[in-house]
């Protein structure tokens, strides 16, 4: 189990450098590009560029997956009966996810610092983009936890990655209305797509939306987890 985790972390780190090496010295990515995203001009070859951008996300979601599923299967049963409250246990898993996504965001930002000079510079919106990246990453990992109560964690991983990819693709290509961007929420990961670079009022609306959906998902998760039978 620990070996798998180490291997996943290794591949995640590798994917971050893979991302940087494919973006550095190209004028298609802003500084802190993992959170700011592609420049608006990127339309041709977008499919490949998005793969570069989203590859770390697959490892992040994969690393964080299984936390709920593992509690209800095999060894998890021995752990779960040693707790008194399912609600507290669920919130503990979510809290662990928040901590891990914060660490991941800080790690990615730190790794990007030496390479930022080779990318397009931004005058504003970096901090806002990083905050939004962290919040949406959190939302995606919470969604992963909820999906695990219904489907196999690996299937949930694939569903989330495809959804994230399609969302980013559609928003990058088309002029999508703000309310539609809410449906395609994984695209809000990136500052160029969530208005934090432009830094207008929709950014705050998106922040409120992401927080509300996260709270709603946690409440749904607690309800479902309490009703879930463990065999």
């Amino acid at each position, binding site marked *: *189990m*620990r070996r798998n985790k180490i291997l996943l972390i290794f591949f995640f780190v590798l994917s971050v450098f893979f991302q940087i090496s494919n973006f550095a010295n190209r004028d298609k990515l802003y500084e802190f590009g993992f959170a700011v995203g592609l420049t608006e001009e990127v339309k041709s070859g977008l499919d490949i560029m998005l793969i570069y951008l989203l590859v770390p996300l697959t490892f992040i979601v994969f690393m964080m997956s299984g936390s709920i599923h593992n509690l209800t*299967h*095999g*060894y998890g*049963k*021995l*752990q*779960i*009966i*040693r*707790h*008194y*409250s*399912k*609600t507290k*246990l669920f919130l503990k898993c979510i809290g662990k996810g928040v901590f891990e996504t914060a660490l991941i965001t800080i790690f990615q930002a730190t790794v990007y610092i030496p390479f930022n000079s080779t990318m397009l510079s931004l005058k504003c919106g970096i901090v806002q983009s990083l905050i939004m990246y962290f919040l949406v990453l959190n939302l995606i990992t919470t969604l992963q936890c909820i999906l695990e109560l219904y489907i196999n964690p690996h299937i949930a991983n694939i569903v989330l990655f495809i959804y994230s990819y399609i969302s980013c693709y559609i928003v990058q290509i088309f002029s999508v209305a703000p309310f539609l961007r809410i449906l395609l929420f994984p695209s809000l990961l990136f500052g160029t797509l969530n208005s934090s670079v432009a830094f207008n009022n929709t950014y705050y609306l998106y922040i409120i939306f992401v927080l509300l959906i996260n709270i709603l998902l946690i409440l749904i998760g607690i309800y479902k987890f*309490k*009703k*879930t*039978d*463990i*065999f």
Partner: protein
Amino acid sequence: MVEIKNLCKKLSNRLVLDNVNYNFEYGKVYGLCGPNGSGKTMLLRAIAGLIVPTKGQVVIDGKVLHKDVSFPPNTGIVIENMTLLPQFNAFDNLKLLGDLRKIATDDDIREALKRVGLNTDLKVRKFSLGMKQRLNIAQAIFEKQNIILLDEPTNALDEDGVQLIYDLIKEERNRGALIIVATHHEEDLREMCDTILNVSEGRFYEKQTVH
């Protein structure tokens, strides 16, 4: 006391527990006897808080499961599909579980392993089926649990192992624990239990007092 009140559990439109009512008292060993699929294991799961009743309640020491608490305090369980971590030895496995509640000392763990006859540093992946079963039983008793739920505890055990489990169950009863054993081997139950409940199609229809 564990009180089962009008307990029903429906799975895919099939009633696997059908209006069960019973009070289990501390310091006694109860046996659930019945064929496969009769509802024995499901009742153990319900008492352990693993399944949510469709109707009715499980009340443990005055606390309603899934209302006041999600899981009963200090309960040990041996049930199918519970695997300990193969990369660790027996002691480390129990130590990891013990760290969750921090009520068992290292000495408690060593004592429990001694009681089930496990004296090895081998990793669990190298254990035989019988050794795994002994370790499973050790994890159900090492925290001096008040309620011990055992599903087919003598599975995969040799004759010595079976006798060891009989003795261990009697010792736990004398300590004041409530023990519920589910098996389809009636002779096992006669050896271990104070009371035997027969289970059929989710109903508990007969009671025999053995001792």
